[in-house]
Each structure stands twice: as C-alpha cells, then as structure tokens.
C-alpha cells in the first residue's frame, strides 16, 4: 500500500468512528457539553493560580500562562488522534485487541482511529491562553511575531513527545493488563507538574521530568528559548530530534510488548 492509500484508509476509519459516535446523538451532545464545563472550571483554576501568584520564581504571569497553553494544546493534539492508546487497558482487559491484530495494517494504525476525539473545549481554552499570553508579551516587547510559528511548531513536537510517553506507558499493560495507576504517574502527574516552570522543583525531580518522563521538553525547554532567548536556536531542531527519538524508542517497546499480548479466554 502506498502512503497515500494508508492516509485515505486512516481518514476513512476516523470518519467511521465519528459516524459511530453520532449514532448516539444525545450522549454525544451531553458529553461535549460536560467536557466544555470541565474545561471552564479548569480554566478558572488556571486563572486563579495566575491571579493569586502572578509571577513565580522570576516567571511572569504571561510566561506561566504560555507554559499552560502549550501543554494543553500538545495534550489536545495527542489525545485527538491517540486517545485509544491512552485507553489501551480496555482492549487488553476484554481482549478486543484480537480483532485489530487480524487486520492487515499496523496495529497502532488500526487502534488510533477507533475513536477520534473532538476536543473543542480544550482547543478553545488552550488557544485563548496562548493568544492572551503571546499578546501580552508582544505588547511588552518580550517576543516578536516569530513566536507564533515557533509556538505552533513546539505544540507538534510536544504532542509527539506526549504520545510517546503515553504509548510507552500503555505498553506496560501487556505485562500488567491494568495501567491506570502508572498512567496517573507518567501522564497526568508529570504533565500537571510541567505546567509550572521546572525551576520550582528540586533538582532530582526536574531531571526526571526532563529525562525519564520528558514532559519538560514539551513546554519548559522550548519556552526558555522562545520567550527568554536562553539556550539558542539549535533548541528547535534538537526538539524535533528528541521527539523522534522518544517516538522511536516507544515504538520499539510497543512492538516488543505486542509479542507479550495475552488476549483473554473465550
């Protein structure tokens, strides 16, 4: 199969997943509404933190909002396409992965479009924060227009890194079946921690967040360059390299995990 036909198959599967979800219109609308509510309350949380603490350890209110925004948008991009990777446990527990393994396509490519999530609330929230923070910093002359394409770029590399972390975490499920606890640690806790500047944390912890669970590469490291001109322009290509490296390692681990799949009795 050519890349083109893979893409069109992928698009078809995504359309199928949306069509399937639309079968339950009430549930779909209610779910979207509730998700928006949750986003609003989360946004209020962020607003309170920013208002209350303002600057943290030399990071201005706008800069912290920027860290938040990049993390939210990267996560949104990852979850829009890779939500089922995060929910792999479901497939392991009831053996639904069997079906995907009998399809003539890479398992991940069959798994990911099973559910395409439309995360409008997150996009709006993250988008607003990003606009607000960049707008504020531009007005203060801290950053120029080039920050906009750079931000979009690091949202993509960030999404790849978060996806890699999610995939590696999910892969542990081939041994343990249940992975929720581990996900709380590597995905939710780590991501929440990286919503603030890493200088806030003790050295060992910020090292973990940069090397073992590299969420710091999603927003903190690029912000050092984009917002404060530290490090150097090499950061941007290096991030792409790091993202691809993470992805490569996760994919290898995933391939290995698949050979340990246990299915379920029937």
């Amino acid at each position: 199969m050519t890349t083109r036909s893979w893409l069109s198959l992928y698009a078809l599967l995504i359309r199928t997943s949306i069509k399937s979800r639309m079968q339950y219109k009430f549930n779909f609308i209610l779910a979207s509404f509730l998700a928006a509510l949750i986003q609003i309350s989360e946004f209020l949380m962020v607003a309170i933190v920013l208002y209350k603490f303002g600057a943290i350890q030399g990071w201005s209110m706008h800069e912290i909002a920027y860290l938040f925004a990049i993390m939210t948008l990267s996560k949104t991009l990852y979850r829009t396409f890779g939500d089922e990777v995060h929910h792999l446990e479901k497939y392991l527990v009831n053996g639904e992965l069997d079906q995907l393994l009998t399809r003539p396509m890479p398992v991940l490519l069959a798994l990911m479009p099973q559910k395409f999530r439309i995360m409008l609330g997150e996009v709006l929230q993250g988008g607003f924060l990003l606009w607000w923070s960049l707008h504020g910093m531009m007005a203060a002359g801290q950053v120029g227009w080039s920050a906009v394409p750079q931000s979009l770029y690091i949202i993509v590399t960030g999404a790849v890194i978060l996806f890699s972390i999610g995939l590696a975490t999910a892969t542990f499920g081939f041994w343990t079946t249940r992975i929720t606890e581990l996900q709380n640690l590597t995905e939710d806790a780590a991501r929440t921690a990286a919503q603030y500047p890493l200088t806030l944390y003790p050295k060992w912890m910020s090292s973990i967040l940069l090397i073992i669970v590299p969420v710091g590469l999603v927003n903190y490291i690029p912000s050092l360059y984009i917002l404060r001109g530290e490090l150097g322009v090499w950061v941007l290509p290096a991030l792409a390299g790091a993202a691809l490296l993470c992805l490569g390692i996760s994919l290898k681990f995933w391939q290995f995990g698949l050979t340990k799949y246990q299915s379920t009795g029937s």
Partner: protein
Amino acid sequence: MIEAHNIRKEFKTPVVKEGRFSGLRTLFTREYRTKEAVRGISFQVEQGEFVGYIGPNGAGKSTTIKMLTGILHPTSGRVSIGGMNPHKERRSVVNNLGVVFGQRSQLWWDLPVKDSYDILAKMYSVDQADKEWRLGQFAELLDLQAFWETPVRKLSLGQRMRADLAAAMLHDPGVLFLDEPTIGLDVNAKRNIRHFLKLINEQFGKTILLTTHDMDDIEQLCNRVMVINNGELSYDGTVRSLRDTIGLPTLITVTFRGPFAIPEQFQGAGEGSRAVPLRVTSAVDNAVTIEVNRREMNTLDIFKELGRWGELDDIDMEDPDFEDVIHKVY
C-alpha cells in the same frame, strides 16, 4: 498450508497486589503464576482440507487458533501459514486469512452492515468490482439482503454470524479460521451456516479450520478432526476412525415372540464375558438389551446369533452418539 511445529504457549500472570499503587507494585513484582495452555502441538493441514478442532472448555483451542492467526506469539515452536510466519509477517499472512470469532464481531457495531464491508474492502485493497461481485454471491448464499441496512448491534445472533462470515470472506482468503461459528445459534441458522461453509470448502477449495462444541458441525462438515485436551493433541484423524478407535458399544434391544434362552457365556458382566463381543446387560420380560461392539461383530452375525436364542419379534439398534464418543475422548 497450515503448519504447526511443536508450539507451546505459557501464560505468565503476575500475582496482583492489593492496596495503594497496586498497579505499580504489580509491575515490579516477581511472583508469577504460570499456566501452560498449549504444550507442544504439531500438525499440518493441506490445502482444501476441512478440519474440526475440538476439545473441552479451556483445553487450548482458542489459544492455538490465536497463535495460528498471529494474535498470540507462541512461547516456543513455529507456525507457518502458506509458507509465511504469521508473527514476523503478520500483515502479509492476514491478507490471506479469514478469521471469525463466534463470541465477538469484527464488524463496526454501530454502523449498518454494508458500511463494514466498505471499510473492510478498502482495508484489504479489494477493488470495487470484486467487492460487489463477492457480496452479491454472499448475499444470496447467506441471505444478507434482509438486514443490509441494519446497524450491527441490532442484528440477531444468527444474522450477525452470517454477516461476520461474509466479512471474513470479502478479501477472498485461502484459509479460514472459525472459532465457534455456530455457538448459540438455532437449528436453522446452524444449517444455513454449515451449508455455506461446505460450499466454500468444496466449490472454492478454501482451507478451513473450525473449533466447535457442536458435534453435528464436525460430523457434517469435517473430513478430519483433531482433539485437544489439556493442551495436547489426543487425536488427529478422520471422524470415522475416531468412532472406531473409541469403540463405544452399539445398544440393541431385542424382543422375542416366544420363549427364549440366553446362552450362558453371554450373560452378565461376569468373568470371561469380555471375551465375547456380545453382552446382555438386562432382560426384562421378553425384551433383552444387548451391548455389542460392531467392529468386532458385523450386523448379520449378530442377527444370526440372536436368532438362535429364540423367535425374534422386533429389533431396535442404537449407534453410539457422536457426543458420547467425544465424551469418551475427553
């Protein structure tokens, strides 16, 4: 076509911890429970064969099928489907494979049946003309038209199974693996599906391996049967010789018109009675029940022998049920 060389599958499950961070602690535990589901099975299935794979629940049937289809990786041993390894070349292998798990549908649950076929056709690169031609055939053979537009979740079990079979055949695979395709179906639906399977095996030369608990499936469809028990093959051969090997007795009930006498050597289960192929198990009034192994004594000889005992009024013969034969193998 299908080859298995000494395949084994061990399941290792970590002992699940309880309490806080149980997932994380389970991850690092060193305690495992090991269960050997399949212990060294070898067989070969040739092109065009229709093989029944039977065994009690938990004997390792599904595990074997999952190893053959590339879903599970064997702990040791080798599998080859059409000369290819389903684990190393999974995608090429499944392109020539049709798989139906009776307990589970591979169709898109919330969408009309026909949508699933469109997606599968694209996935397996089946072109439009082939797709329509095949679906036309299946629709006729499996009577799919009636529920063409119905969402899969609203189908009856029989309809769903038919739809699933068509889905598995859409890319015209050479090999079909069917895991309990008749489970839970009524007589009509079973007949319908058996008819279809027989046809695609005989007319189109598809190689089929089927697991089932319904012995009628085996008797009516399979020319070869493999029995798995406790993870090991305990029988591999024709259905007929399976019957013979087990040698369950045929039950004969004879009614005599007048007085009769049973020669002593045939009476009861006393010593020496094993030596004679014919054995009287009960005699009530004029009706005598006899057990006989038909491999050791043919029907005509049985009648001759009985005729010597008295004047025959009626004879009723009951061959052993295949279910009982299987029960004996398990």
